[in-house]
C-alpha cells in the first residue's frame, strides 16, 4: 500500500499545478494553430511541443540542476545547499517552507561563487540540468542559434531587386518606426502604471515590430531573457498573421489610384554587384555600427556564400540542413521559456497587444514613406510596396503583390516589393544593434 502511495505521489496527475495545466493547454493551442491553421508551422510546432515538455510536472526538463534539487531534493541536501548559500533554514518549518525560502534565495542576488557551490552540491547529489534547459543554454543563452538562422536567411536572400532600386532601402528604414513607437508605447504604459516594463523589456517588446523571428529572439535574449517566451511566440504568431493584419491598413492609407501605380521594370543586376554588396554592407557595419555586427555579419556571410558561387555546398547546407537543425533546437529552447510562472502574467497580454500594434505602425510607416517618396522622386513608387518594409520575408512582399493585383490584375509588384522586404531585414538588424548598444 505504501508503494502505491509513493507511485501516486510521483505521478504527474498528483503534482500537476493549475499553471502547468494551463500552459500545457497553451502548448496544445500553439500546436493546433501550427498544424491546422498553418501558422509558421516550422517554428510553432517545436515551440508548442517544447512548451508542453517544459510544463510536465516533476520532470523539470526546463530548469537547472539547482532549481531541480530545490524542488525535489531530500531535506538533508536542502540544508547543505542552504549552508552553501550562506543561510540557515528554520528548523521548525517543514521542507516545503525550506524549498520556498531557498528558491527565493537562489533567484535573488547571492554571490556567484555561492550559487556555484550550491549548484555543485545539487549536481553532486545526482541532479542534472533539464534537457530543455541545456538546449536553451547552448542555443539561445550563447546567442548562436538566432545567428545561425540569420546566416541561413542571408544564404536564402536575393538582393537583386534591392540593388536594382537601392532607394527602397528607405522603405525598410521607415517601417522600423513600428519598433520604436512600440518601445515608446510600452514605456508609456509603464509610466501610467498599467504595466510594469523596464526600458530593456520595452526595447525587447518593440523588436517584435521588426517582424523578424531570429532578431526578436536575439535581442530579447540579450536585453530581457525573462520575456523571451512571450516575445518569440508573439513575433512568430503575428508573422503568420501578416496577411490578415496588413491589408486593411494598406487599403486605409492609399487611394485606388495609388494602388494602381505601375512601377518601371527593374534593371538586370550583374553577378559582381551581388558579390560585392554583402562586403560593402559588412564594411559599413564595421565602420559605423559594430553592435549590429553579430546579426549583420552572419547575414552578410550567408549571402556571400550564396552569391560567390564557389562554395555551393556550404551555401546549400546553410539554407537547408543547418537552418533546419537549428530551427528544431531553437524552437524547443523557446518552448522551454513557456513556463507557467513567467508566462502566465498580465505582462504577456501586454506583450501580445503591443506586438500587434508594432506590426500595424510599421506597416503604416512604410506605406506613408512610400507616398512621401512618390512626391519627391520622378520614378513612380507604388505605396503598397512600403508595407513590405516590415521584414517578414517573403510573406509581406506577397501581401503587397496580392493587394496590388486586386486593384489592377496586370500589375505584378512581387519583385518590387522584395526590395523593401530585404531592406526591412537589414533595418531591423540595425535597430537591434542600436538598442543593444544603448541598453546592453
Amino acid at each position, binding site marked *: 500500500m505504501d508503494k502505491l502511495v509513493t507511485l501516486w505521489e510521483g505521478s504527474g496527475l498528483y503534482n500537476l499545478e493549475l499553471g502547468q495545466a494551463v500552459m500545457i493547454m497553451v502548448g496544445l493551442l500553439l500546436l493546433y494553430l501550427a498544424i491546422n491553421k498553418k501558422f509558421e508551422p516550422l517554428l510553432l510546432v517545436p515551440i508548442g511541443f517544447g512548451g508542453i515538455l517544459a510544463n510536465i510536472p516533476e520532470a523539470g526538463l526546463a530548469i537547472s540542476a539547482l532549481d531541480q534539487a530545490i524542488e525535489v531534493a531530500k531535506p538533508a541536501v536542502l540544508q547543505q545547499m542552504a549552508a552553501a548559500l550562506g543561510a540557515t533554514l528554520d528548523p521548525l518549518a517543514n521542507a516545503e517552507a525550506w524549498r520556498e525560502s531557498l528558491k527565493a534565495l537562489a533567484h535573488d542576488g547571492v554571490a556567484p561563487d555561492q550559487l556555484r557551490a550550491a549548484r555543485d552540491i545539487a549536481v553532486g547529489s545526482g541532479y542534472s540540468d533539464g534537457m530543455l534547459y541545456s538546449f536553451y543554454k547552448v542555443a539561445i543563452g550563447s546567442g548562436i542559434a538566432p545567428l545561425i538562422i540569420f546566416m541561413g536567411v542571408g544564404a536564402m536572400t536575393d538582393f537583386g531587386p534591392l*540593388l536594382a532600386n*537601392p532607394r527602397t532601402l528607405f522603405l525598410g528604414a521607415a517601417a522600423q*518606426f513600428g519598433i520604436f513607437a512600440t518601445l515608446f508605447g510600452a514605456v508609456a504604459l509603464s*509610466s501610467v502604471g498599467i504595466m510594469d516594463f523596464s*526600458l530593456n523589456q520595452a526595447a525587447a517588446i518593440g523588436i517584435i515590430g521588426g517582424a523578424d523571428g531570429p532578431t526578436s529572439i536575439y535581442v530579447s535574449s540579450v536585453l530581457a531573457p525573462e520575456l523571451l517566451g512571450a516575445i518569440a511566440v508573439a513575433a512568430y504568431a503575428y508573422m503568420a498573421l501578416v496577411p490578415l493584419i496588413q491589408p486593411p491598413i494598406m487599403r486605409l492609407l492609399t487611394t485606388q489610384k495609388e494602388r494602381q501605380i505601375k512601377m518601371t521594370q527593374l534593371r538586370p543586376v*550583374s553577378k*559582381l554587384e551581388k558579390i560585392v*554588396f554583402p562586403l560593402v554592407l559588412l564594411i*559599413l557595419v564595421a565602420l559605423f555600427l559594430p553592435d549590429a555586427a553579430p546579426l549583420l555579419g552572419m547575414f552578410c556571410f550567408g549571402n556571400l556564400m550564396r552569391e560567390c558561387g564557389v562554395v555551393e555546398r556550404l551555401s546549400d547546407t546553410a539554407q537547408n540542413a543547418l537552418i533546419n537543425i537549428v530551427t528544431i533546437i531553437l524552437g524547443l529552447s523557446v518552448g522551454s521559456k513557456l513556463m507557467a510562472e513567467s508566462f502566465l502574467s498580465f505582462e504577456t497580454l501586454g506583450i501580445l497587444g503591443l506586438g500587434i500594434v508594432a506590426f500595424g505602425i510599421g506597416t503604416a510607416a512604410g506605406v506613408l514613406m512610400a507616398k512621401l517618396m512618390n512626391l519627391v522622386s520622378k520614378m513612380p513608387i507604388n505605396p503598397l510596396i512600403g508595407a513590405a518594409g516590415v521584414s517578414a520575408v517573403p510573406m509581406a512582399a506577397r501581401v503587397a503583390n496580392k493587394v496590388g493585383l486586386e486593384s489592377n490584375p496586370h500589375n505584378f509588384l512581387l519583385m518590387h516589393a522584395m526590395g523593401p522586404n530585404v531592406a526591412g531585414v537589414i533595418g531591423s538588424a540595425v535597430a537591434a544593434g542600436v538598442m543593444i548598444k544603448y*541598453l546592453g
Partner: protein
Amino acid sequence: MQDLELLQDGLALMALGMGVVFVFLTILVISVTLMSKLIGRFQPVPAAVDTGKKASSSSPPAAQSDEVMAVISAAVHRYRSTRRR
C-alpha cells in the same frame, strides 16, 4: 518622478534609434549606388556579357548533338545489318 525619467529615456531611444537606422541606410543607399556605378564602368555592360554567354553556350550542344547523331546512326546501322543476317 522615476516614471517621467523612464518616459524620457524611451523618447530618447526612439529618436536615436530611428535616426541611426535612417542615417545608416542612407549611407548604404549612397554606397550601393556608387558601387553599382563603379562596377558598371569597369565591367562591360552586363547585357553584352549575357548574350556572349548564350552564344557560347548554345554552340557546344549543337556540335555535341551532331556527334551524338553520328554515333546513334552508326549504331542503328550496325544493329540493322546484324539483324538481317
